[in-house]
């Protein structure tokens, strides 16, 4: 992993975010407007990436799709990170009994493969954008809590933390001034991994039809729609697939670079 890789990743990510944010100005058509006469039109000057089965503009849907897909992923990451951090810190720093109990619950949840847990939660929560973010977000909590706890336990054993304790610093002060800065780099790297899962699994639940509004522009939904048309009109699957893969590729590259950063070695 070198600086060139990180720069490439940042360029791709910035591009994806910018194109999604500017969708209302860049889009050439209404992403939901169906023109039956123009269905499955190949890419042309009028429709840059062609049209889908309902005659909607794939280019505009891909731009708007980025807003929804990336927006859901960001929300998902927040839903994972905050409780995951708190549980991990409390378990790693709160004493043996709390640690054992919390980690037992986390291990029980980790017994489910990630996507299966998200699906079980969707079964209870029902369909919708918020539901997908919540299901994928909660499914990510146990892994994040475990990684946080492991980092905290490692930091607690560091000589300067032990020295601070020996000098009689208050636990809260040790936690805030010594532990948190020490565990921040590995946790940031794992946040990158979490974001990449959030994008892939969120879009997977959308693909499987749990996103509620099925006509919404969304990379997962576009790929689901494309199942009926890609044999004769491959362009319907091309743009959302490339957008999704490039974004996840860039996130993975950055997460890898963070993990190999000197602060994490």
């Amino acid at each position, binding site marked *: 992993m070198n600086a060139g890789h990180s720069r490439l990743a940042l360029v791709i990510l910035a591009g994806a975010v910018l194109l999604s944010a500017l969708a209302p100005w860049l889009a050439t058509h209404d992403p939901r407007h169906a023109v039956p006469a123009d269905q499955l039109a190949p890419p042309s000057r009028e429709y840059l990436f062609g049209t889908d089965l309902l005659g909607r503009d794939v280019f505009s849907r891909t731009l708007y799709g980025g807003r929804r897909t990336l927006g859901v992923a960001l929300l998902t990451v927040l839903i994972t990170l905050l409780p995951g951090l708190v549980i991990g810190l409390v378990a790693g720093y709160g004493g043996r009994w709390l640690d054992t109990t919390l980690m*037992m619950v986390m291990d029980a949840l980790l017994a*489910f*493969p990630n996507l299966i847990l998200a*699906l079980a939660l969707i079964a209870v929560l029902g369909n919708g954008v918020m539901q997908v973010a919540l299901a994928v977000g909660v499914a990510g909590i146990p892994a994040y809590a475990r990684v946080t706890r492991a980092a905290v336990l490692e930091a607690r054993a560091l000589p300067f933390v032990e020295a601070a304790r020996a000098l009689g610093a208050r636990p809260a002060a040790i936690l805030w001034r010594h532990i948190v800065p020490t565990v921040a780099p590995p946790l940031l790297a794992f946040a990158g991994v979490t974001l990449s899962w959030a994008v892939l699994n969120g879009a*997977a639940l959308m693909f499987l039809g749990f996103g509620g509004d099925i006509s919404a522009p969304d990379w997962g939904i576009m790929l689901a729609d494309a199942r009926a048309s890609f044999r004769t009109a491959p362009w319907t699957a091309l743009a959302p697939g490339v957008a999704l893969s490039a974004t996840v590729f860039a996130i993975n590259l950055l997460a890898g670079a963070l993990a190999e950063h000197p602060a994490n070695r």
Partner: protein
Amino acid sequence: MATYVLRRLGAALVVAWLAMSAAFVVLRGLPGDAVDATLARAGASEAEVAAQRQRLGLADPLWQQYIHYVGGVVRGDLGRSLVSGQPVTEMIGQQMGATAALALGALTVGIALGLSLGLAGGLWPRSAAGGLAKAFASLALSTPVYWTATLAIYLFTVVLGLLPGTGGDGPRHLILPVMVLGFHTAGAIAQVTARSIREAATLPFVQTARAKGLPEAEVAYHILRVGLLPVVAVIALQLGFLLGGTVITETIFVRRGLGRLLLTAINTRDFPVIQGVVTLTALTYSLVNAVADLLYAQVDPRVRREG
């Protein structure tokens, strides 16, 4: 070693039991199941719905239902579908073969492909083959299954006409789904293998081996003996990805299997079926990970002493 085996398997069973209980609490604790949905759609009165719930034992307090459920699980009874009334174990039995074939096939492809890519990337990180292997692995980790499956069907079925695409049950229909899911399973295996081998190559004993003049092939063998250890663990963890991946793969290739059973059950809110599939998955996953830990301890005694 014997105590370690018992302790590790015991821990796996406890975790699986906790997972089952978590699934029970979450899935049964909330209102609105298939009985409500199906009967209400059929125009049944509230009294009729209540009578049906009574018959199915759904009106009992939650703890009674839980004891009843656990008792059933111990006897190998996962309850009955709220929609069809069929025993859940029977429904799972009918679908398990298709999913097991897909998962085992993909696991085989994933291990073979992942190990070869990982070896290339780990032993020759600076060569073209190593670079290509790394690029391939990161592609497998970045692209979603539901997209590569679409591309694979387009290439092998539509353009080349070599393999059947969606639908169908025969062995030829298994090839594409197995290749696609195996490709994605290989990603993480390749990455961990390459990293672990590169790290093993920096250990002091490798320098010693070179210094005393061992041929490079024998040095590589020494590196591999140490570097391949963590791969067992990552393969077991990849099974989790694989079990989730079968749901998507079965959907896109329109195949029968547990994934489809689960999705149908979610859409009809058929909680006993969801619970059965989800619990079985958790049990399989935690037992496989326990066995992987045991294998690891078998080859690396340091693990037993720590555990």
